[in-house]
């Protein structure tokens, strides 16, 4: 059972028939699988497996090529099933302990079929300039199906040598599966999956890729302080390197909780302090659910702003509350006194956060933008406030709104010829359904970014375990989706909404392994793919050691220094 796995993928070895029994489907040359027996463009084609090929050897999500009479198709296995030429077979008592009889029946009367969804037509000549195109037809009857070879996968997904980022391997293959990061950051992306399925590791990997490629800056709202200096691998009980350790000066860490950072023995670049003057009624509106405020109470904040002005409304309101004049204030604003009292109580809770001061002259969002414009990446660690959802939502929303504003200004002046384009920015948020739930998505800045900020070079990376809680309109704007295992029906439906072939992908998604596997589909990829995610560990560190700049990044820096 020898089989070669040459990474350089030389062609023309002929079919290695011993591979049929070896359990490995991938080789330099694809193995013959079977033959197309029926199908449709909408539902994909049925491939009847050759007698020698057990249905057990074909996994859902595996890549397959089909040689039609004029085209070569590239598709993915979406289902495998058992068929029989005689419907009475299941009622006929067969001598199952006689291997001879069973072998004679296998592949003839009882056979395996796989459903393949042809996604692309491959260029006629391998390595042709012209890449694969979306398949608009299906292969004809009796076309032969093969497992995809490494060369096929490289043709479709691009290779690492061409500047793509190696994220993992397809199922059952050793091939490097690569992502085009330039395309990835052009649209918002989402990382979904149940708790403990490796979302954080995948995100860390993607961020490292983005950092290394220099395609964009990133701003990470790091809820549990696991991206900055180091994170924990809960399964192995070891700590893994964060972005700062890997990329050094390219990453700036901000913290809300200096004490927490100090306790962990880390020095951070800046400590964030926000003033009451930075908080706006819109922020309160967003926190309504988290703080359990009524609609009336939340909208009272707008009345307060009207009365006291943008800068001082919260400060004055708290002062009035402390002075015991809430009733008069309610009268004056013509809002329900109970609602105003509730608002006061909740505001009191928020203002006890250590990172909030009565008045702050430092515009922390400007500081963050400074870092971002220098081509750096910013990780904002929440320290002990990470467990406080209200704090996370407040701070990330508040900062993002300001950054958004500045990006819009910069982009508009660039369009008017008055400055350079703002650098693409990826904003990373966790627990995204809290920001993007249908009830608040229309108000939060994240909803706006998801919907339209692509035009202003800002995209979102949302990380979430309950995608069904995210507004469907926002979700439909998430260009590239990485989905680890999900088992809730509604979540699966939400993640796959608006994706062609979602019915077939559903079975793939529900059968992912609970670790290190994810289904990737959308804008940055020509077709959906199940990825065995690459190990984030010492081997990976080596490839990024020193945080050296990529070619694109070097060019950008040179241009920045010497360009006009």
């Amino acid at each position, binding site marked *: 059972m020898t089989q070669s796995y040459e990474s350089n993928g030389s062609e023309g070895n002929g079919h290695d028939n011993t591979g049929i029994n070896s359990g490995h489907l991938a080789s330099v040359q694809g193995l013959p699988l079977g033959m197309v027996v029926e199908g449709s463009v909408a539902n994909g084609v049925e491939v009847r497996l050759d007698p020698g090929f057990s249905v057990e050897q074909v996994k859902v999500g595996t890549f397959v090529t089909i040689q039609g009479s004029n085209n070569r198709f590239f598709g993915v296995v979406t289902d495998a099933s058992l068929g*029989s030429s005689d419907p*009475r077979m299941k009622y006929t008592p*067969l001598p199952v302990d006689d291997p*001879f009889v069973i072998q*004679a029946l296998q592949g*003839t*009367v009882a056979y395996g079929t796989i459903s393949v969804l042809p996604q692309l037509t491959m260029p006629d000549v391998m390595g042709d300039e012209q890449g694969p195109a979306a398949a608009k037809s299906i292969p004809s009857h009796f076309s032969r199906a093969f497992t995809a070879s490494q060369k096929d996968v490289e043709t479709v997904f691009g290779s690492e040598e061409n500047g793509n980022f190696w994220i993992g391997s397809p199922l059952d293959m050793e091939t490097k599966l690569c992502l085009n990061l330039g395309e990835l950051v052009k649209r918002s992306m989402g990382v979904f999956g149940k708790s403990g399925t490796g979302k954080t590791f995948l995100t860390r990997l993607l961020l490292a890729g983005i950092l290394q490629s220099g395609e964009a800056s990133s701003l990470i709202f790091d809820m549990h302080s696991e991206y900055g200096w180091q994170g924990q691998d809960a399964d192995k009980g070891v700590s893994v390197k964060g972005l700062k350790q890997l990329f050094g000066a390219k990453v700036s860490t901000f913290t809300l909780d200096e004490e927490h950072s100090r306790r962990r023995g880390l020095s951070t670049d800046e400590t964030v302090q926000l003033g009451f003057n930075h908080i706006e009624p819109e922020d309160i509106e967003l926190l309504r659910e988290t703080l359990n405020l009524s609609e009336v109470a939340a909208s009272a904040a707008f009345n307060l702003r009207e009365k006291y002005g943008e800068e001082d409304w919260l400060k004055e309101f708290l002062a009035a509350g402390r002075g015991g004049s809430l009733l008069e204030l309610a009268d004056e604003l013509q809002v329900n006194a109970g609602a105003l009292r509730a608002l006061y109580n909740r505001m009191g809770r928020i203002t006890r956060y250590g990172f909030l001061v009565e008045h702050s002259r430092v515009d922390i969002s400007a500081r963050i933008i400074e870092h971002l414009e220098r081509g750096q990446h910013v990780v904002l660690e929440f320290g002990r406030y990470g467990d406080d959802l209200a704090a996370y939502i407040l701070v990330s929303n508040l900062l993002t709104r300001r950054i958004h504003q500045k990006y819009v200004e910069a982009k508009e002046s660039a369009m008017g010829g008055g400055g350079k384009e703002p650098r693409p920015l990826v904003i990373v948020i966790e627990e995204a359904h809290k920001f993007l739930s249908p009830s608040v998505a229309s108000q939060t800045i994240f909803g706006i970014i998801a919907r339209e900020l692509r035009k202003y070079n800002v995209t979102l990376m949302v990380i979430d375990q309950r995608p069904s809680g995210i507004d469907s309109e926002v979700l439909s704007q998430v260009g590239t989706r990485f989905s680890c295992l999900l088992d809730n029906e509604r979540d699966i439906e939400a993640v796959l909404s608006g994706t062609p072939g979602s019915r077939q992908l559903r079975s793939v998604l529900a059968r992912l392994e609970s670790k290190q596997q994810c289904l990737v589909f959308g804008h940055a990829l020509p077709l959906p793919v199940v990825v065995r995610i690459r190990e984030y560990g010492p081997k990976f560190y080596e490839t990024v050691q020193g945080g050296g700049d990529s070619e694109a990044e070097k060019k950008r820096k040179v241009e920045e220094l010497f360009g006009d």
Partner: protein
Amino acid sequence: MARRVGEVVESTSTSFVAQCYQLEGAPALGGLVRTDSPDIYGVVGQVTTEPLDSARPVLARGEDADSEEDVIRDNPQLARLLTSRFEVYISGHVEDGVTRQYLPPRPPRVHSFVYLCSPEEVSKFTGRLDLLRLLLNSGAAHADEIVGACIRQAAPAHEQPDEFLMQACKTLAVELSGDVARLNSILRRVSP
């Protein structure tokens, strides 16, 4: 070298009957036989031993005899009064030097000699297995038995009998893909 076992006495497009030269000298069920000029192959189906004159039925004669041999010795006329015949289902022919596994244009002539095929011939002829379909559809009352016997008989003539058996069974499975119960009964007859 092929052994001559009889002579065609009755002939139709799909089968012929041959009379044996020796009493009880018919080839085994499922054996491959051939006529010459023209070369027509067939598989032995029904074997019959009966009185030459149907009006004179055979009577039991061994009531007082000690052994079966004694019966024959004491009644030497028996060998002359009885005859063995076998029915052969045509399963192929040679046309312009090429072996075809379908029915010949004309059945063998009466009085054609019938030979039992040598292992080499068996191996060569059963290199293709289209004959199985002919046999299954021969209309013989016990076609399944004939098919099973034919496969069992042919296997030892091949260099790799097991492989031949499996290939034959796979061919059967394709032919009988709509009737698993029948297929199953033949497979159990063939299973080593």
